[in-house]
């Protein structure tokens, strides 16, 4: 039904743009990871030095693992907060469902920076939380570790990414046919058994998607550590940022980025296959 001219003219411009502004840049970054820096300039001498350094130098691996731990914690917390909320909206909210859904989306659009900053003001030693605790005479001195710690990073990122996790879980719960729930009850399964054996399995694709979002986005995050992480809350992306900034070692930064990219793509691939197996069985 569509002429070749039509098909060519809709396909060519975006393909060209995306090749130029996405494929080529990613490729250049890829190339950078094999170059090195000497006396302040980038030398195109094609080697694996950067990757070797990543593995040899313990600092990079330890920060990477710390980042993954933080990402895992955020993922878990986001699931713990997001799943029951999604379940409540989908199965118990009836008429207020729409309104409550919008209520979840709104913080998503409240600007990342704004929310990170808000936590900074809450958690600081002069901040709202400390002020509140002292006002109630629960503490008498400001608690230091609220801010500029991994705790603050986890708290902030959980706050930011819980709606991201909520969305796909809610979508998949909405897709569970209600007559399956009725059928389960009809066959004698209690509400809890029905949840365990029908609703939960059918919502797993959404859970997987939501968990992946939270994990991947947290792993690549560099703003929250800068805002609330302090020295002990540094994550792998912060190292990359400094390598592209003051530390001036673009090739090494590129190598780390590429590793992150491979990690993320690998994770997405794995979850995609897991999801396909779940929905087919």
């Amino acid at each position: 039904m569509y002429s070749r001219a039509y098909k060519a003219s809709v396909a060519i411009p975006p393909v060209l743009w995306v090749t130029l502004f996405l494929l080529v840049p990613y490729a250049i970054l890829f190339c950078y990871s094999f170059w090195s820096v000497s006396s302040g300039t980038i030398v195109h001498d094609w080697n694996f030095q950067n990757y070797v350094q990543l593995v040899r130098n313990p600092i990079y691996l330890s920060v990477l693992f710390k980042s993954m731990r933080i990402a895992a914690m955020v993922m878990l917390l986001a699931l713990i907060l997001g799943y029951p909320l999604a379940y409540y909206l989908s199965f118990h909210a009836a008429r207020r469902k729409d309104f409550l859904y919008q209520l979840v989306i709104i913080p998503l659009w409240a600007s990342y920076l704004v929310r990170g900053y808000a936590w900074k003001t809450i958690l600081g030693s002069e901040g709202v939380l400390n002020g509140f605790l002292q006002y109630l005479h629960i503490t008498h001195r400001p608690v230091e570790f609220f801010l500029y710690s991994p705790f603050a990073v986890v708290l902030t990122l959980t706050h930011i990414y819980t709606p991201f996790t909520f969305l796909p879980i809610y979508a998949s719960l909405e897709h569970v046919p209600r007559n399956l729930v009725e059928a389960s009850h009809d066959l004698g399964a209690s509400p809890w058994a029905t949840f365990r054996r029908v609703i939960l399995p059918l919502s797993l694709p959404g859970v997987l998607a939501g968990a992946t979002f939270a994990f991947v986005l947290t792993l690549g995050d560099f703003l929250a550590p800068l805002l609330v992480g302090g020295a002990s809350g540094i994550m792998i992306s912060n190292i990359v940022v400094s390598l592209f900034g003051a530390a001036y070692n673009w090739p090494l930064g590129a190598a780390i980025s590429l590793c992150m990219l491979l990690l993320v793509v690998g994770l997405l691939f794995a979850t995609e296959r897991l999801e396909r197996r779940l929905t087919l069985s």
Partner: protein
Amino acid sequence: MKSAANGGRARWLSAYAILVYAFLYLPIIVLVVYSFNRSGVGGFPPAGWTLDWYTQLLSDGPLWDSVLNSLIVALIAVAISLALGLPAALALDRADFPGKAAFRRLVLLPLILPGIITGLSLLTLFVGVHMKLSLVTITLGHGTALISVATTEIFAGLQKLDRAQEEASLDLGANQWRTFWRVTLPNLKVSLVAAGLLIFTLSLDEIAVSFFLIGRDNTLPLEIWSRLRRGITPEINAISTLILLFSIATILVWYRLRARSERAEEAGASLLASTLEGGQA
């Protein structure tokens, strides 16, 4: 599907849901409340009401310059994303070409990958062609990264499009281009507007990609960011509150648009159904 037995569980769930909402909105409420706080940020309870921070905001030249920059960048980014996202969606829907699957994944990458990777890649590109970093580079970055948002939204709109309308147009003698302008495009109006709104909001709040592409002029998030590095001022609470209100308004409009288009579809479908039934009776 409620019964007496369900009531208890529902009550626990709604209590939990309230807690989650409280967690999601706590920082936002603190932000807004303290933007009116006389003694500025921190401490508890808030000392007194004042609009000083807002008036201070009004006379803050550099801040409004950055707002203007952000608006310009956002508008152009919308234009770029739509101009490329529309043909991309059409191509994915209607054309087969070598590398189509790769193209689809490539377009989605900026959405899935941490922004830092996309930002860095574009940086290496611009540096490679010796292009100076400026608002132009930021705009190109936003436009590219957000193409996938446009593509996804418009693609969904294409699925709901009745192919028969286009066939009818061709049948009546209009060529492919006329059909596109007078049949396809009007039907995609809602998708285009919804996508535009979304891209606009995302661009206004964008930091990760912009961080690396910034030149002399700041966008609003980056301006706020640089001030945050220097120290906290309550002025930032004030501007954050304003950003929040603006984002909420935009997203609510987007949401209503979506809902109305879906209801219009249902209305159209039921109208069609009742017409057919009436014809048979």
